[in-house]
């Protein structure tokens, strides 16, 4: 058992390593970032000096090896732009992104699961159609556009919510909605499909044949089984959300990791971008791993034995 957890972890590390190699080559192959570090006012000599100082004149493999070996010790390099250790920079920013991610996925789950269940209980009913429409429309709504509209309506027209910033929980309402609604359709559909599937299964009929009430059948017998795939989907979505918070953070001026990523790209701050890609992929990997564990715990069939 332990051996297999280790094996999975090893595989996960391999995934992370591959991601880092791919992103490193993508980012650093394109040329050297010296002129980015120098900025608009740097002279040609400045740029040459920077190139040597940062070692951009060395072969890519050497640079990668350097990066990797220090990354393994927790040193993700120094941001070209902020001149601060990337690790601490990211650690600072991740907090907001994590809050956002957790709120987003909770929002998605809290709306999608009940909706999905309601839709599955009465297929083709009004609520089912509504849920279906919401999910199709939700998937079609560009999140940047949705965010802007929310700001116009709730911050400007109605003045109910602050348009940006992160200074109080209220500030997170709109970003949470924008981030969460994106994961909602998928979760809702899966809940609905899972519920429909489970509700037509033999063991639900067994439960009914025992004289169990409809509520008991739905929530004790059906939901528990239907929710299992939703758990892994939610974990995967959570991983995506962290990476996908770029748009949301830039619209709502949340200084989280996503916004840092966007800005770092614009500034060619490659160590930060590289580290962020790594961190996001690690998150994804961790979440999927955790979801597997959670699944194994929820679903007795998955347990060993």
């Amino acid at each position, binding site marked *: 058992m332990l051996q297999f957890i280790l094996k999975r972890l090893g*595989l996960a590390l391999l995934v992370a390593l591959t991601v880092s190699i791919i992103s490193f080559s993508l980012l650093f192959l394109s040329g050297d970032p010296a002129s980015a570090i120098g900025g608009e006012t740097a002279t040609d000599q400045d740029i040459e000096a920077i190139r040597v100082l940062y070692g951009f004149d060395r072969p890519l493999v050497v640079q990668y090896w350097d990066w990797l070996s220090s990354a393994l010790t927790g040193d993700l390099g120094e941001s070209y732009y902020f001149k601060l250790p990337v690790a601490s920079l990211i650690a600072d920013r991740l907090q907001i992104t994590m809050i956002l991610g957790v709120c987003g996925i909770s929002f998605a789950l809290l709306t999608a699961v009940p909706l999905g269940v309601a839709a599955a209980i009465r297929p083709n009913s009004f609520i089912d159609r509504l849920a279906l429409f919401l999910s*199709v429309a939700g998937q079609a709504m*560009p999140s940047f*556009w949705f965010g802007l509209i929310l700001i116009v309506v709730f911050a400007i027209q109605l003045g109910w919510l602050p348009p940006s910033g992160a200074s109080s929980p209220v500030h997170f309402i709109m970003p949470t909605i924008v981030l969460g609604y994106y994961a909602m359709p998928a979760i809702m559909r899966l809940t609905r499909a899972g519920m429909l599937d489970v509700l037509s299964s033999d063991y639900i009929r067994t439960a009914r044949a025992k004289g169990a009430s409809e509520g008991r059948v739905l929530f004790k017998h059906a939901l528990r089984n239907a929710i299992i795939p939703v758990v892994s989907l939610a974990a995967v979505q959570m*991983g995506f959300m*962290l990476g996908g918070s770029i748009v949301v953070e830039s619209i709502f001026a949340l200084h989280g990791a996503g916004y840092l990523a966007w800005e770092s790209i614009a500034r060619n701050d490659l160590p930060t971008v590289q580290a962020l890609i790594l961190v996001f992929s690690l998150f*994804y*990997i961790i979440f999927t791993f955790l979801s597997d564990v959670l699944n194994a715990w929820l679903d007795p069939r998955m347990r060993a034995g």
Partner: protein
Amino acid sequence: MADMATDPLLADITGPTPGQMLRKRIFGHQGLLIGAVVLGVLVLVAIFAPWLAPHDPYAQSLMARMQPPVFLGGSWEHPLGTDHLGRDYLSRLIYGARVSLLIGTVAALISGVIGTAMGVAAGYFGGRVDAVVTFLINVRLAMPVVLVALAVVAIMGGSLQVVIVVLGLLLWDRFAVVMRSSTLQVRGREYVAAARAVGCSTPRILMSEIMPNIVNNLIVVVTLEMAHAILLEAALSFLGLGVQPPTPSWGLMVSEGKNMMLFEPWMVMIPGVVLFVLVLAINLMGDGLRDVTAPENRS
């Protein structure tokens, strides 16, 4: 016996062919029809853009910037107003359909080819091939798409080609996942075993036994990924790293209109709504196709 043949109980011993059933289901599916009609209209608009657009979408008139659309008090000269450089908004929207559809189609095509090849190979051959493909899928899923796409486009410079290729190279995961599992499913069917027992070569089995039975899933994924690519391009454009101006991409138009969002909200609303409608249509179609091509019910 003659009148036995007309016995109503005998009437439907042989039912409709799969094709007939499919057609019946297609025409009975509202969402699919609505989606297909809207998408069809948009495709026609894209194709006939030069004839439909009232103005040259690139012709600027700095003295006639940001004129409101007709319904907000503008003139019929520019039915949907003009943009921040005084270009006709309607014409740009019409040409924008080309960009979005092109990006959606080509990106979905590229990722479809990659993902299908990988997924089918993994599902069919299993074992080591499957392990490698699964690993690659994991790697791909672990990469934050928006971030990587942004970074690559930022570095390579965002031309239409670059954006399409980047999206194409990034969006194959769902193809691979879905094709893998459908292939796995189909591979276990006895008709595949029968074909092997008959002596069919592997390519033949893949092409004539497996593919026809997973192609419906493929089509569904194609539509979903098309929508995905279109939305991603819009997001990239919105973040300033999408296609190059003056190409009239809808995402870019939202991004440009965004500056004046608080004062001229129509500049954001109009391209946003068309984008929404296009993606909605594609999604409706994808959803509809999923319903319609659901595995044939037994008998």
